[in-house]
């Protein structure tokens, strides 16, 4: 059985969602790459950034 990584899972999900802000998927993927940061805070900031744009 194929066990997808979190990044694979997320990108598959985001590709299936319509009307997301441009560049949202790429920037979310970047959050997952940052290993030395508090990921929940990085996710929160990501949504705040897109809400302000």
């Amino acid at each position, binding site marked *: 059985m194929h066990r997808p990584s979190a990044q694979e899972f997320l990108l598959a999900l985001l590709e299936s969602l319509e009307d997301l802000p441009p560049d949202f998927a790429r920037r979310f993927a970047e959050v*997952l790459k940052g290993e030395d940061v508090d*990921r*929940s*805070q990085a996710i*929160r900031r990501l*949504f705040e950034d*897109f809400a302000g744009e």
Partner: protein
Amino acid sequence: MSEKVQRLVMRAFRGIPGEMIVDLGKGESIVVYGDNGTGKSTFADALEWYFTGEIELLSHEGRQHAMRHVGVDDDEVTSVEVVTNGALGGKALFPDEREPETFQAMRRETFLLRGRTLADFVNKTKTEKWKALVEILGLDAIESLREDFQRARNELRKESKAAEELVKQYRRALASDGQVVTHETVLSNLQQICEMLGVDPPRSLNQAVDPSWLTAAVGASAVSAKPTNQESLLGEIGALTTPTLDSHLLESWNALVSSERAALLPRAAVVREAKRLVETRTIGARCPVCGQSVNEKELARRIERALVEVMEASRELEYLRDPLVQLTHDLRAAHDKRLSLHKSGHAMGLNLAPVTPLPAAALQGAIDSLGSVNIEAITGYLADLRKWDAAANELAREASSSGPSTRDTQLVMLAALYEQIKGWRRAEDKAARALRAVTLADRVFDAYQAKQKADLTEILKRISGRVAQIYAALHPGEDLAEAVSIEPWTAKGVELAVEFYGSHQRPPHGVLSESHLNSLAISLFLAMAEEFNAQLGFLLLDDVINSFDVEHRGRLAELLAEGFSDWQLIVLTHDQQFFEHLTRRAPSWRKLELTSWSYASGPRTTQYETSGILAAARERLGSGDVQGAATKARRALEEQLQEVCEALWAPLPFRRGQANDKREIGELFKGVRRTLKERAKTLLESVEPLLKHLEADVGATLNVEVHGSRGRSGAREVEAALNRIEALDGMWSCPECRTRVWHRGNPDAARCKCGQSSFPPVRVN
């Protein structure tokens, strides 16, 4: 590739002081039998440690030292070496310095089920099951991201709520007279204040919150400010001045009007008329007025002198009189001003003192009558004026300092409203941004969870189908067999469920027995291994049938032997019947019996090279161990009769608990006879002599105490008994496939595995 274990070498490990080797050929299955305490679980511990990096039982603090055999020397190395048919083999040394990543993939694989933890998964809460399943499915990274995502979303929600609350606070502050606060109502309030201040109101709130607008508005207010009545009054009081008194002027006036020259002034007209007469007419020697004789020239000179004096006095008088008249006017004006202020002040509640009456006669009268001025009265009046002014100014200061002016108040109101509007707009902007962030986060997060759930549901559906199949194999004929499933329960939970006679039971603990729950756990274990194992091709079951009755032990043995023939099964059991079941149903499996354990040498084993306990009995007999052979033979007979009774559903008396599975051999004979009598009378008649012989064997030859006292003569009897047991065994076994005739179906339609042998002796009738 799924790897199988070919060789297991344990050294100074757990219950093994030296070295123990278990050879599994090319990766064949094995059943290991031994009583409790003979070291079976050491095998399971070795494989668990090698493949997961820990032994769950020893994972608690203070137990790790038990990985080593307690009696070995310090220089002895504790190790477990595993040889597989792939790349997973190797050697683990204690203390274990392998990196956690070594086990990460293998820990997700299902390969070990122990009796003591059999019900763990079944008994876990739905959340614990979810976590366990998530780890097995390798979804832990996805679940970890979900948890971080959820924390982020919760914080965004909290921020949005706080921002919305701040907006409400501003709205409450901006509300007046209970009005609903809108941009229009706030703009209207702002416009009213601007109107009071006389400045142009803003056209919109956006303009109002622009700092340049406020600066311009305050500036315009300063220019257009109109003082109020009170401000005017206070201003006038502040501006009061007292007329200046020139004492020298008054003194000069008084000196003039008191002099002789001043006396000429009333006669000035007469002197002017006399001068006109002298200049226009000839007077002669007599005065034209009184007739007295005069010298005309002398008269003319005297008139001229008088006229000069009068003119000089008159000029001096005029010189002093004008400023005196001005002073009179000033005093009256000052007096009238104060009377007016007194009156206005009274109307506004400002209690000014009464004004001293003006000493009009003291000045105006003196001017009119050319009299002396009462300087003292004038000076006193002016002093009173100054006192009044001082008192009025004091009152004015008090009135001024008692509160801000209306304009100041309006400016303060404007500034406060400006700040509130600015804060409100900022809060609204922040709340709108926060709401947008939450809306987006909710959408993505909900989709994330939905996908997680959908993916898991799909997996669970696959597992559920297989669990139900396995469970049905263990419990054929039960209505529950097809109704077992694993279902998602809440966002982060999964639970086992059964359809129990029309009702959905989730979890099933309330309606299933302990044995059924254990069957469910075994079914789940086997189904998950089939579904998810990618690297490990072996399954290890350590004493998992404790709560099973004899029938279900047989069914499990059959399931393992046939349903999992592609797997390498390593089955550890202390149950002899289960061991015999497996031995018979899986003749190709390796067998290993642990006979005892000692501190010095560890487990002692007997290799089962031939199948079955009967063969073992013959081996004992061949080696001269008559007593051991008799013991094995009796066990073989007991096991055979018990199986016959179970397979043919012999009507044995019910006993509570495990006693139901441990029958006296006499009971078993009775059970076989009753079954055959009811369903195969002809067969009973042919078997009866054999059964009687065997009963006699049990009472004598196979009675170990009796046999022990009879020396060598017992060997022949034991051999004869073994022959009889084998003969009885042949009645139930297929000569082709060696399986029993009840291998397929139930007693009404029983067949062996290959189908060539049925249960005709019973069906003959």
